[in-house]
């Protein structure tokens, strides 16, 4: 994991140096991103505001907000931005930074959901839907899992629930793990 000391860079410098973040300083605050975003109304700060706050150095407020976790990666802001800023990629970068610094918003379950999903990719190279959902519910709200039982049964009777996970051949699994361990050692992008 990266050992960037908190506060050595301003947030805006950090984002600018990440792939996809280089054009953030060109933002003209037109708000096209916020107007295009299907989920902006539920965000602590709209995408336009989030960029303004990042530029103003409001590191903690930005990284602990729920905004980027409500981004559904629909890329509408990205294709519409008149300054060609890769806003969706910046949202992903903010998510990674917030995870790395343990600042993920507690007001959304998305960080836990993404973490559960990623754990499966890391450990077996694929995502078995039932196990992933069960892990997610155990980590968040086991009672909610009960509410999901009718849906699970419906999926099962329609032949859409595989109990057995897809596994890579052992040597392929080993290869993937060697690659991902190396990536971890390299400390992020």
């Amino acid at each position, binding site marked *: 994991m990266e050992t960037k000391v908190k506060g050595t860079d301003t947030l805006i410098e950090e984002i600018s140096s990440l*792939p996809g973040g280089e054009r953030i300083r060109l933002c003209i605050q037109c708000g096209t991103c916020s107007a295009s975003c*299907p*989920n902006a109304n*539920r965000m602590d700060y709209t995408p336009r505001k989030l960029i303004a706050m990042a530029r103003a150095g409001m590191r903690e407020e930005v990284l602990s907000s729920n905004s*980027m976790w*409500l981004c*559904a*990666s*629909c*890329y509408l802001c*990205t*294709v519409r931005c008149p300054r060609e800023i890769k806003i*969706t990629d910046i949202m*992903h*970068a903010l*998510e*990674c930074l917030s*995870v790395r610094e343990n600042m993920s918003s507690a007001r*959304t*379950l*998305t*960080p836990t*959901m*993404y*973490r559960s*999903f*990623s754990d*499966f*990719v*890391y450990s077996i*190279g*694929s*995502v*078995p*839907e039932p196990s992933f*959902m069960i892990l997610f519910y155990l980590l968040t709200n086991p009672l909610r899992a009960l509410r999901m039982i009718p*849906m699970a049964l*419906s*999926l099962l009777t*329609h*032949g*859409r*629930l*595989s109990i057995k*996970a*897809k596994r*890579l*051949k052992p040597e*392929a699994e080993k*290869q*993937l793990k060697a*690659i*991902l*361990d*190396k*990536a*971890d050692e*390299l400390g*992020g*992008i």
Partner: protein
Amino acid sequence: MRYYTYFPGCSSSHGGAKAYGMSIQAVAKVLDVELIELENWNCCGSTPYTSVDELASLCSSGRNLALAEEKGLDLVTPCSACYVILSRTNSYLKEYPELRAKVDEALAAGGLEYYGTVKVRHLLDVFVNDIGFDEISAKVIKKLDDLSVAPYYGCQVVRPGPTFDDPEAPQSLDRLIESLGAKATDFPLKARCCGGSLIISEEDLALGLIRKLLDSAASNGAECIATVCPLCQTNLDVYQGNVNKKFKTNFKLPILFFTQLMGLAFGIDGKTLGLEKCIVPADRVLAKYVEI
């Protein structure tokens, strides 16, 4: 015969969208397309992984690209979410040499090398642009006359791009539906978001998005919706009941993979196409037009 390396993705191979995988193989056979599954592929890299550990996600994606490169064919995936991630890895590795050096080093730890030559394609692109509407029309033996289909593209098949179609007002699926004899309805929200995986962590928010899509399709006279992505199909089909419950609506729109519609028009039976896997039953609507 046309040959491609095939990347099914978790959902269409072992997950909830098996019907997509089944119908793809059946339709490909009719069109003389050989989809050769990439051996030992792993998760595409995925948006969730990108959002917690970007380098690891790029490396996971890079492994697939390196394996595909050895085959020397275009890499085709039917999943829009896999498509966007694999394409993004490709363009990131070209654009950012420092990042590329890290991914190269990680891949080398697994004895792999990636030179950046793989072309990542969505299955819709292959059918529309390599096979073409004329060839597809020529295979139709049961015209889906008058069946009104809302063409649903979703997001990641056309954005961020550039891809094979317009990022906001795409047409390729509309024309494909029409080449089967069916009618592509107006569908103003055809390239808008279904909520993706946020249906799991932010169900209320995603149900609102799904409702808007169903409403846009139904109010334009659609009898069913055709999708090009396992995630979109799952959200609109499996969660349609939850939408009805939450918003007191009464949607009964079957959500079909575009390959299931193609298969029906090609005279393939419903079972082979996995039609019985639809949660919102499709047979009543389809039976009006075609023997299943």
